[in-house]
């Protein structure tokens, strides 16, 4: 079992390269890959958006609020948000099976938790809002790009939101904390920290991390990712402005007020099972 030595050596090499640090695609440490968002791309959907973020090509479509099937999954006092993250077989190399993986399921879960804080689900008792995300081509950071498209698709569907949700990852590569790793970089990345953020409410709604970081580096990465989210947020607003000729501010409602008015009077309560 002597192979571990080779690995140690590689690490030393890596460090020696540290001085002449530059990113494969020439970006600065805090620079996003190019982001492009378009709304209304799926005529049948209630709302939709297409995003290119680096080489990611992703479509998100929203159906709802609508009646929930099967009914037993609905809730008597609030709506349910369901997010399905799915990769086309040809989105990655080599081809993958179209059957959902455990990773897909997990990403659907964290995306739901990332978007739900921005919605007024209490307004849609017994209903469901379905968000379907299809990865046409995958680069590093599909889950962040997916959140960005899904948030815009929700606005496109006319669903009132407390805030937009913008998403971006930071990571560590060659001992630098950098923004928005592409998948070429991902392979030699030391850590990846995807973050979703509500810029006006200043809250992180998605936070994951894999790799090895000191606690300080972790916080640094989260803060850098939030800066990235803010840049993405501008692109999302532009895309919505382009379509609706107005700022998304006008559609977003004041969170606190709405939350109050959305509250059910205690008398009408029943069990939800």
């Amino acid at each position: 079992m002597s192979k571990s030595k080779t690995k140690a050596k590689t690490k030393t090499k890596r460090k020696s390269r540290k001085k002449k640090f530059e990113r494969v695609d020439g970006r600065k440490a805090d620079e996003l890959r190019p982001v492009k968002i378009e709304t209304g791309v799926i005529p049948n959907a209630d709302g939709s958006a297409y995003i290119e973020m680096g080489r990611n090509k992703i479509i998100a479509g929203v159906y709802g609020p609508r009646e929930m099937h099967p009914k037993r999954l609905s809730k008597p006092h609030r709506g349910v948000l369901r997010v399905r993250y799915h990769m086309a077989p040809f989105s990655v190399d080599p081809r993958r099976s179209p059957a959902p993986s455990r990773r897909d399921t997990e990403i659907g879960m964290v995306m739901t938790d990332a978007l739900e804080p921005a919605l007024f689900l209490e307004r849609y008792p017994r209903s469901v809002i379905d968000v379907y995300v299809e990865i046409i081509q995958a680069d590093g950071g599909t889950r962040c790009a997916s959140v960005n498209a899904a948030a815009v698709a929700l606005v496109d569907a006319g669903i009132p939101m407390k805030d937009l949700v913008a998403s971006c990852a930071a990571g560590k590569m060659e001992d630098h904390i950098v923004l928005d790793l592409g998948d070429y970089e991902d392979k030699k990345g030391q850590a990846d920290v995807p973050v979703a953020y509500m810029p006006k409410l200043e809250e992180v709604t998605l936070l994951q991390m894999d790799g090895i970081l000191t606690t300080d580096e972790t916080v640094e990465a989260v803060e850098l990712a939030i800066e990235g989210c803010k840049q993405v947020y501008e692109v999302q607003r532009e895309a919505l402005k382009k379509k609706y000729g107005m700022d998304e501010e006008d559609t977003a409602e004041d969170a606190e007020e709405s939350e109050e008015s959305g509250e059910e009077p205690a008398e009408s309560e029943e069990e939800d099972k």
Partner: protein
Amino acid sequence: MSNNIVSRLKRKKIEEVLEAGTRMDGRDLNDFREIEVRTNFLEKSEGSAEVRMGKTHIVVGVKAGLGTPFDDTPDEGVLMCNAEYTPVAHQTWEPGPPPHGAIELARVVDRGLRSAEILNMEDLGLVSGEKVYIVFVDLYVLNWDGNLIDACGLGALAALKGAEIPVFKVSKKNEVSETDKTQKLELRCEPIPITIYKIGKHFILDATADEEEVADGRLTVTLDENNNVTTLQKAGPVGFTVDEIKKCINIASEKAAEIRSQAVASE
């Protein structure tokens, strides 16, 4: 193919218009909607095509990799078609195992390619009985507004036509290794499926979702560039007379040539 009141009214309206020789959207009976084809727009697929036919929107990805041959054809590569009805494409489509429609779609496009012997499968063998190319053609429906077989058949052809697959090297010891090179897939023909929908006594092409819903049946005729038929597929709870079949073959024969020259013209 439904029976409720809304559907019957829709059918009545559509038939009235057909009676007058036109369509709800103003097209002639044999007109297609506008077709847009974009190829090789994906970097992680060996080939790709995006087809829009009116509001119908599909993507085709071609991936080539190594695999094992079937027992009865040890020297031949494998071509596989798969279709996915993504839930984003229509409000009634749900995540889960492929519905019957998606299975039939994949099968008809698949048979259209194989019957036409579009690829020389023996060229795609590497080590007899052990290693061959597997070429996957994935049909991905993003928005459904009717006529999926024609859109996907066209997309599959366009994606295969533009595909460049990795070149594998076979050593004397029959070890297979990847090289840096790629090569174009050589297509032996260009099959195009044309689906004729029957509504009462009328026959139309490129039906929308509404037209499909009220249609009695359909007949798909796939033809190659020599005007050979390579696949037929009749569907729907209705019969066709021999004269109707002949008529359909004629319509398809004309239209396939037209669409081939428009949509997959060689560079």
